[in-house]
Every structure is written in C-alpha cells, then in structure tokens.
C-alpha cells in the first residue's frame, strides 16, 4: 500500500464527507442527548425565577451572517419568557440587520402565544445606532429618550408596558444576543455601572473571550454557539414539556438539530485527525526501518 498517498489524501474527499455530514442530520434528525453547563443553567434559572411583572430586556446585537447560531438562542429565551409570562422589551443595536432579525424572531415566537398582547406583555422598540451611547442613555436615563417611538411608530409612552419601564431600575435582566463586541459592552458599561444582571448569547467564536467577563462576575450567564443554544432548548423542554411540540416539528430549524449535524461533522474531523496521525506514524516507522536497513 502506498502510504504517501494516504498522507496527502485529496482534500475533496474531506469536503464531500463534511457536506454529507451536515445535510443528512438536518433532513433526518438523530436526536442526540444534550447535557447542560453552569453558564447556561445560570441564565435559565434566572428567568425561571422571575416574577410575572418583572421585565427582561432582550437586545438583538447580531445580523444574518450568524443567524444559524444566534437565532435558536433568541427563540428559546423569548419562548421561555413568554411561557412564564415574564414581560419582554426588545431592542436592536447591531447595525447590519439586527432589527430585521429582531422583527422576524419576535413575530415568529410571539405568534405561538395567541394570548400575548403587544404593548402589555412585550414591546419592540426598534434599532438605534451608536450602541454604547444608546445603552447608557436608555439604561441610565430613559428608554423613551432613545426610542421616542417603538418600531411600529407608536409613541413609546403610549405603550402600557413602557409607561412602567423607565430605565434600568425596572429591568430585572438584560439578555444580549451578540456576534461580537456589543455583548461585551452590555457587561462592561451596563452591568458595571447599574448592576443590572447581564447574560450574553454569542457565537462559538466569540464565546472564549466572554469567559473573562463570566469570571469577573460582570456577566450572569453565557450561551456559547449552537451548543449553548441546544443546552437552553433542552432545559426549556425539561422544565416546560408543553414546548416539546414546537421543538419536534419537522421542517423547522432548531439548535438541537443543528447540534446533531455539528456532532457528526466534529466526529468526521476528529476521525480524520486520528487517521492522519496513524498514517503519519506508520510512515515514520517505515522510514526509520529503511534507514536501519541501509545502515
């Protein structure tokens, strides 16, 4: 057997396997079990412990490029709040598509709860540029200063919920779904200045740097990538089995399905690494033997 050919295997074989490993689990879900980690549990427990009159501020700080990771976490968190009757204020601070994501997700999830009343149970304030300044102003002074009108053009002060919610004093928790830096600002500026608990759902790429904030206590919880989102979905289903029907629908995308594809792809990559090293080891041994023979 020619070992060299295995060492320099055509990369297109890897590409093909990855393509299959991604597509097949999406079409035929496997349903691998998921266990949760403390950073996710802490956010879940926080929302699970909120009273019905308490308010969660949800900030959409990501755009379409990271939607596969961020969407499921935003959906799960909103479902959790709505299921428990916790009030939600939604804003978007990400310039490239943040408000679109917020609109689509909110419309979809709120549609699952026909009893919800806009303006009473939740409010959608829209997008504001200059995230840092906007954060400080809405949390420090008043939401209505930053968003005089909600996304639909209604005066913010006309919404019953927003008459009650002035600034950080009425916010029990901030959850930011963030691609990159904006989640950090929530922890850095808002938590540091007003003490409001902040949790961030972010992409797997950005998650490592958020550990520092988790460490320093500036952040209450952290959902990292699809793994974090699928953990949250699992916790949600365990605590509220009635949501099972939503999560088991065919033809909708959930973090758990995505996680199946993830797992298969990871397995493929790791098997290739093991394979590569085995072949490498064999080549080394063969070369060493040849040298001995020649000597």
């Amino acid at each position, binding site marked *: 057997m020619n070992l060299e050919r295995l060492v320099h295997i055509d990369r297109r074989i890897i590409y093909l396997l990855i393509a299959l490993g991604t597509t097949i689990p999406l079409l035929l879900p496997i349903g691998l079990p998921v266990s949760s980690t403390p950073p996710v549990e802490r956010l879940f427990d926080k929302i699970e412990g909120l009273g019905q009159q308490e308010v969660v501020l949800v900030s959409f700080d990501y755009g379409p490029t990271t939607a596969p990771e961020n969407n499921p976490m935003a959906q799960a968190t909103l479902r959790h709040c709505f299921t428990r009757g916790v009030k939600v204020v939604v804003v978007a601070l990400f310039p490239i598509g943040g408000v679109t994501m917020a609109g689509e997700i909110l419309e979809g999830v709120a549609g699952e709860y026909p009893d919800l009343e806009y303006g009473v149970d939740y409010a959608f304030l829209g997008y504001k540029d200059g995230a840092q300044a906007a954060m400080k102003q809405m949390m420090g002074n008043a939401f209505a200063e930053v968003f005089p009108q909600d996304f639909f053009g209604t005066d913010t002060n006309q919404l019953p919920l927003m008459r009650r919610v002035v600034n950080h004093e009425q916010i029990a928790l901030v959850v930011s779904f963030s691609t990159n830096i904006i989640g950090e600002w929530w922890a850095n500026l808002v938590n540091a200045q007003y003490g409001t608990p902040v949790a961030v759902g972010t992409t797997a790429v950005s998650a490592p740097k958020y550990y520092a904030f988790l460490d320093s206590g500036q952040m209450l919880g952290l959902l990292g990538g699809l793994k974090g989102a699928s953990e949250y979905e699992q916790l949600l289903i365990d605590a509220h089995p009635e949501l099972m029907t939503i999560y088991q629908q065919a033809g909708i995308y959930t973090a758990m399905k995505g996680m199946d594809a993830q797992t298969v792809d*990871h397995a493929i990559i790791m098997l290739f690494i093991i394979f590569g090293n085995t072949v490498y080891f064999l080549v080394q041994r063969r070369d060493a033997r040849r040298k001995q023979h020649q000597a």
Partner: protein
Amino acid sequence: MFWKLRLPLLLTLFVGAVPIVTFFLTEHTPVIGPAVPFVRDRVESYMVIIAGFALLLGVVSVVQGSIRKIERRRPGWPFAISLLTGLLVMGAFGILSAMRVGPFQGLLTAPDGSDTPFYWMTRNMFNPLQAAMFSLLAFYIASAAFRAFRVRNVEATILLAAAFVVMLGRTPLGEYVFSWLPGGERWLPQVTDWIMAVPNAAAQRGIIIGAALGAASLSLRVILGIERSYLGVKE
C-alpha cells in the same frame, strides 16, 4: 522638500498629538477645553467622510483594470464584463438613490414601503454570495485540521491535544466518551471550560498586553515621523 515631506510630517505630529492630549482632558480644561468635545465628536465624522471619498479611487482602479483586461483580451477577460456590469448596475442604483433622481427615492425601501431594485439585488445576489463564501470555511477548517494536526514535536502535540479536547468537549460526543464512569459525562466539557478559562485566557492576555505595547510603540514612531513607509519620500 518642505511641502512633500516636512509638511506631512509636521501635520502627523500635530494631528497625532491632539487626540492624545484631549484623551486625558474634559471640556472644563482651561484654554484648550473647548477643543475637547470638538475632537471627540467632530473629527471622527470628518475621518469617515474622507474614507468615503477614497472609495472612488478604488472604483477608478477597478474600472481601469477591467477595461485594460478586456482591451488586451487577457485570460478570463469575459469575466471582467460581468464584473463591470454588476458594478455599473448596482452603483448606478446607489448613486441615483443618493441623488434622489426620478423614481429612485430610497436606497433599500421606496417611500411607499416597497423594496427597491437595489434591495432586490442585495437580498438575492449579494447576501447569498456572502453567506456561501463564508460557509466554505467549514470545509477549509476540516482540511486544515486534518493536514496540520500531526504529532510532530512538543509544540504541535500541545496544539493538537488542545484542539482535540475542545472539539470533543463542545459537542455531545465529549459526554459519551467517559459516560460509563459515574459523573464521567461531565469531564470533557469541564476540561474544555478549564482550558478556555485558564491556559487559553493566559495566552490571550499575554498576546494582548504585548500587542498593545507594540501598537503603542509603532504609533509613537509614526507620530514622531520615524516610521513613514506610507509617505514614501526619504530625506
């Protein structure tokens, strides 16, 4: 020599020192106080405008290059036509919307709330192309991992081990590996979290401190006029 070299260098020194000095001050500082909010709020917006003008230089370079390619029938010249067509159509929509000419009254949405052609092309051509290119990374990361992660020496082995553990620990796979031991399903996720929070954080912190000092040093060299590759002219 003064105009070509000294003037840019003197400007560099002055313009570079201004944000540094005002960084530490407020508008209540005597004499130069009023300059502080000006520097913080206005100058930044000036810079954005200057950058905006630069885009046209790029466009000219692209158009010249493409036309040359077509004229000289260089390999692949027909693709220069598709490039120019895309640029022309999209750019024209953009410019006309900016000038509010005729029916072009908005860039993405028309006044009546309907989508503009610019938006249609963004959504159906530009965005899918971006997302497709971005998603190629999944394939590339797999082939890079296969090729590069070999037990060659100590460094390469550490790299491989860390990557392997984290890959395992971030998916349900990591839970199965030791699940036959009591509590074992949490081991790899915990090791992953530990790697991220301790040695990885240490390495990142070291890089950040070093890089920030390096950047500050380079900044100082630029302000002092020692580093001026971009200005060209030597004394």
